[in-house]
């Protein structure tokens, strides 16, 4: 029964519907396979060459571009950061130098003022000392004169008291000689 229905279909299939030998070698089927394979390959080729491959190529190129751009941008930013750091360091160094300069100036100014003040003070001290010395000399001179006057007076009084006539000039001379001596 099965033999009759299947028999005319193909010489490559037996009555039970099983393959006779290798189906790969069945010549009846090859034309069909080759035809549909060629159709398939043409379709795949058209799809790949028209749509898929250009698109994937574009995606990969775009990604490569994005990565390259990002790396370039990162390099740029890095360069900018280095520049900014340099500027910062330079500003810091400038500020430090300025501060030192100002400090030195201030120190110099203070030194000048100090020197002036010291000089002035020294001068004042010297003047005061000279004045004082003069005063002391005056006082000393004054004291000597007073002693002379007192001694002359006293000597005159003593001479008078002893009953002599006080020769004023003689007494003065004698006192002078004594005081000097």
């Amino acid at each position: 029964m099965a033999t009759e229905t299947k028999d005319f279909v193909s010489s490559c299939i037996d009555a039970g519907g099983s393959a006779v030998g290798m189906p790969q070698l069945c010549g009846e089927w090859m034309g069909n396979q080759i035809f549909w394979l060629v159709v398939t390959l043409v379709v795949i080729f058209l799809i790949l060459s028209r749509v898929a491959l250009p698109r994937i190529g574009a995606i990969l190129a775009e990604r490569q571009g994005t990565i390259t751009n990002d790396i370039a941008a990162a390099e740029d930013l890095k360069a900018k950061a280095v520049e900014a750091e340099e500027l910062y360091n330079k500003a810091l160094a400038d500020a430090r130098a300025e501060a030192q300069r100002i400090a030195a100036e201030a120190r110099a100014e203070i030194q000048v003022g100090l020197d002036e003040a010291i000089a002035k003070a020294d001068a004042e001290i010297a003047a005061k000392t000279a004045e004082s010395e003069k005063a002391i000399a005056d006082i000393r001179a004054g004291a000597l004169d007073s002693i002379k006057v007192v001694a002359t007076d006293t000597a005159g009084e003593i001479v008078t008291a002893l009953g002599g006539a006080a020769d004023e000039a003689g007494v003065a001379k004698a006192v002078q000689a004594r005081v000097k001596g």
Partner: protein
Amino acid sequence: MASDASAAEGSSLVFHPMDQFIVKPLFGDGAIAWYTPTNVTLWLALSIVAIIALLVLGTSKRAVVPTRTQSIAELAYGFIYKMLEDICGKEGVKYFPYVMTLFMFIVSANFLGLLPMSFTTTSHFAVTAVLALAVFLTVTVLGFVKNGAAFLGLFWVGSAPLALRPILAIIELISYFVRPVSHSIRLAGNVMAGHAVIKVFAGFAAIGAIAPVSIAAITAMYGLEILVAFIQAYVFTILTCVYLKDALHPSH
């Protein structure tokens, strides 16, 4: 006869490892003409669908950061592109769509053939022979168009001693014409053998005691087949690139 044998004894082993390769019409039961839509047509169409799903739909978003499907598509693109560029150099890149078509078709047909109940188009010599002959004819025509008679230098080994050159030329000539044969039989043979072996193991599963062993063997074989499905597509493609290199640079 086979149905009689299987009906007669329940425990007897029935092997039909080659039945999976039978070409059947999709509609009706008639004879198969060259235009009849058959299971071959169906599974070839499914491989087109798979390729569209992967390479066209998978990349439809054109994401700079790819999704999983898009990564696989890009990986396949980069894999074949780099292979072609490494072997054939810059001028080989022009044939990229052609090589990519071969690779994508073989790899998708091989993997679709691993689905249970499927029909493996690449297990048929008619299919792989067309692929291999297409490569052979392309390489030969391209070789003569690009290099003219200098393409024959491929068979004249300049680095060998003069006395040996005619002998080598004969060997080279034979090996050149054997290329499409080995190229096609390697692919179909590998795929067919793996599928047939799985079917044989499956036949043994009818015996209860052996069933676990049989299932383990099928599993192991299936793992191997997944490897083979990719490696054979890879081998076919890389050989295509090597042959293409001969056409572009025929000197040894």
